């Protein structure tokens, strides 16, 4: 029985496991192998590189801790790869934790298993073990990738340090997993638990980051598993490894999983530990009067209003924050000779603060728009798999109309995100006294729309051809595209190869102006994707 349950749980996790393992493999190998390309090969060059990076890293200390011995491959990987990977895997752990019991429950499988005599606690334990084993497998791949990459660059990594940081990442993700598992038992629906879990993990991540800059937050940062992770990441030579921090994270994970078990024992299946009592009210027998629901595109936007609001809020907060730190960042860059020397080749005559916003913020904003497009496509895919597309097509709606409405919906949402981004950047500029070219900001924001639409159109094709694998495939394309954009130059890839990256086609409009060829390529890719989406949906079968 346990083996069957474990096999089912493992099977449910395998797509995510393969995807994240591939992502980590690519990222770690590229980062490790590319270290010498970035940092140089002589001690002097590496010292200079380390100094520059330490200056830059101070601007990102709200995200990641200050680097240690970044002149070594270990220090570089610890700061650039493992910190990022820990955050990404923390979010994946939330999805694994919420889905561990809830995914099967929403398909009626939990009732089946319990009806077959599986004790609740055993069920939860087996699925929790499968979850943390999946996380562990990805961490092992990550560590092996670091070794392979370093070996390819004729660098060496401290085996003990690597094992230690791997253990640290794994325990961090276990804590995130436990937190999500608990939330999934307390809250009623899977989506609510996903939202709450992701929000709590991001909040804990930011709490730890902001506590590095705001003294008042330091006493409470102990509740963040990322704080303990920082204390137990020591791949860099000379970094200290706090074994107690690992124990704290493991203990936290154990306590959270135990509490989740207690909640599962007490709650009804199909419900959460917390659920509102039904209230008496007169029966409703009339359709909703909300006019938005009667119009195709507004109806879809209305259905995703809270998610869209969250994306807009995230975009606005991120934009204001990055613009807010642009001025001190620019001062620091201008006062650092090593970085100042680089400015003539990258600044294209714009002020350093604008250069910083152009690179730091709009690079991230492009990634946010791509990620948003992936979530839009994920909803199309679930519309298909959950019968809503068939319901829509049972109404007098043509398949062409469905594709057009979907793309119009994505366009409208991306336009909204771009508008929020523009408003937030310009507002941030006014608030923090950062002089920004308004035309350049508007152009940069406007170009986010075709960038997102390329992913949406590609997702439309994938949804029609491969509904179950759409999200993984599109997310893989987006990540590969981003890695090509960020790491391609390190490996001195030719421009034509970099142009395969959608992010490369977007360029850095706030710094370099409009990249006409890139825009044309984006528009062509969008048009081709839309036409292919239409052709694919017209030919295929729906539902069944």
């Amino acid at each position, binding site marked *: 029985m346990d083996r069957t349950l474990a096999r089912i749980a493992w099977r449910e996790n395998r797509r995510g496991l393969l995807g994240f393992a591939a992502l980590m493999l690519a990222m770690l190998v590229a980062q490790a192998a590319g270290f010498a390309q970035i940092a140089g090969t002589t001690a002097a060059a590496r010292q200079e590189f380390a100094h520059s990076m330490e200056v830059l890293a101070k601007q990102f200390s709200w995200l990641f801790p200050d680097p240690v011995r970044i002149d070594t491959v270990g220090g570089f990987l610890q700061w650039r790869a493992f910190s990022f990977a820990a955050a990404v895997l923390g979010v994946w752990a939330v999805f694994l934790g919420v889905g561990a019991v809830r995914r099967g429950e929403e398909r009626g499988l939990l009732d089946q298993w319990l009806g077959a005599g599986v004790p609740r606690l055993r069920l939860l334990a087996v699925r929790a073990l499968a979850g943390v084993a999946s996380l562990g497998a990805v961490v092992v791949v990550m560590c092996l990738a670091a070794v392979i990459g370093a070996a390819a660059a004729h660098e060496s990594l401290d085996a003990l340090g690597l094992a230690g940081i791997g253990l640290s990442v794994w325990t961090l993700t276990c804590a995130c997993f436990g937190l999500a598992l608990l939330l999934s038992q307390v809250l009623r*629906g899977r*989506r609510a638990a996903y939202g709450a879990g992701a929000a709590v993990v991001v909040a804990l991540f930011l709490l730890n980051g902001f506590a590095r800059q705001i003294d008042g937050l330091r006493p409470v940062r102990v509740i963040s598993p990322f704080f303990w992770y920082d204390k137990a990441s020591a791949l860099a030579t000379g970094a200290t490894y706090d074994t107690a921090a690992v124990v704290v994270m493991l203990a936290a994970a154990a306590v959270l999983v135990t509490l989740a078990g207690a909640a599962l024992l007490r709650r009804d299946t199909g419900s959460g530990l917390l659920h509102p009592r039904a209230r008496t*009210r007169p*029966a*409703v*027998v*009339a*359709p*909703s*009067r*909300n006019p938005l*629901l*009667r*119009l*195709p595109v507004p*109806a879809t936007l209305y*259905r995703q209003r809270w998610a869209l609001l969250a994306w807009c809020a995230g975009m606005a907060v991120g934009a204001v924050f990055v613009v807010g730190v642009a001025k001190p960042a620019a001062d620091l860059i201008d006062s650092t000779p090593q970085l100042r020397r680089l400015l003539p080749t990258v600044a294209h005559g714009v002020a350093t603060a604008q250069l910083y916003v152009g690179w730091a913020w709009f690079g991230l904003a492009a990634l946010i728009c791509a990620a948003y497009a992936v979530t839009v496509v994920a909803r199309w895919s679930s519309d298909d798999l*959950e*019968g*809503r597309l*068939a*319901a*829509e*097509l*049972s*109404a*007098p*709606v*043509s398949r062409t109309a469905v594709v057009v409405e979907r793309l119009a919906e994505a366009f409208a949402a991306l336009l909204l995100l771009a508008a929020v981004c523009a408003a937030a950047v310009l507002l941030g500029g006014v608030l923090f006294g950062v002089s920004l070219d308004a035309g350049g900001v508007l152009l940069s924001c406007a170009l986010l729309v075709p960038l997102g639409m390329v992913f949406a159109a590609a997702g439309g094709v994938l949804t029609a051809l491969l509904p179950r694998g759409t999200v993984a495939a599109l997310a893989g394309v987006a990540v590969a595209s981003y890695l090509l954009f960020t790491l391609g130059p390190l490996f001195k890839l030719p421009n034509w190869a970099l142009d395969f990256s959608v992010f490369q086609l977007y360029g850095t409009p706030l710094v370099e102006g409009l990249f006409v060829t890139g825009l044309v390529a984006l528009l062509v890719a969008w048009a081709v994707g839309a036409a292919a989406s239409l052709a694919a949906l017209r*030919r*295929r*079968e*729906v*539902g*069944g």
Partner: protein
Amino acid sequence: MAATMTAICARGLTKDYGAGRGLFDLDLDVAGGEVFGYLGPNGAGKSTTIRLLMDLARATRGSATVFGLDVHADSVAVKRRTGHLPGELPDFGGLRGSEVVAWMAGLRGGVEAARVRSLCERFDLDLGQRWREYSRGTRQKLAIVLACMHRPDLLVLDEPTAGLDPLNQQAFYQLVREESRRGVTVFLSSHILSEVQHVCDRVGIIREGRLVAVDRLDELHHLRVHRVEIEFAGAAPPLARVAAAAGVENARYDDGGHLLCDVHGSFESLLRALSGATVVNLTSTEPSLEEVFLTYYRGDGGTGLPLAAS
């Protein structure tokens, strides 16, 4: 207009999924205003037929029309006049019933709030709850409302009473009768014979993707097999002679010397085969529709019925 012309016409309609699965060479006419029952067990091809009519699946060959409109080329026009209740209900997640109705009404157009209200009251359906909070039966009730709310000329219903309690089943049958009186054509797939007996004018039986019988409900009943038991005084006729008689199947003697057999159609051949024997008792049992239905789906029988002209 709907009641005077052929509502559904399929010619050689085929959907071949391979390995013998799908729907093969369906020729079918359903008259306007008719309530047509489409009977078959799970996997027989009922839902495939409906998905082809609704243009959700693409035919391998053949064609189908609804009110003279091609179901593929004119699918939007077809669906404008059709109400569809799918076998697999969609998942509307956190939307309230009232929002689902408003959304689908927006896609359809021409939905009157009074009609929605009337349907909801008939099925005692509260649209104030969220879809995910609805029970299976309540979801089915909402699906019925969605299929009927725009007063379509054709209702295509895939196992419409699944999950409904007996009271709501009766309410549904009443609705179908009323719609039929209004001239609405109803194409109702089911594997529940009593459901078909309640409301249908004609029945089509589908087996392994092939339509094996179409007839009026009462005629189908008479065309069916009779189970016969005969007791003889003295010598019984040779089994081979009885078994060779036209329309006789499964002939055998039981331990008490009674002849048991199934007779399709006329008894004349059997009676000729019995000539010379003294019959002291003959019992002919007309099987229930349920048994007839099973006869069609048993591997060892059910080949004797002709496909009646529609």
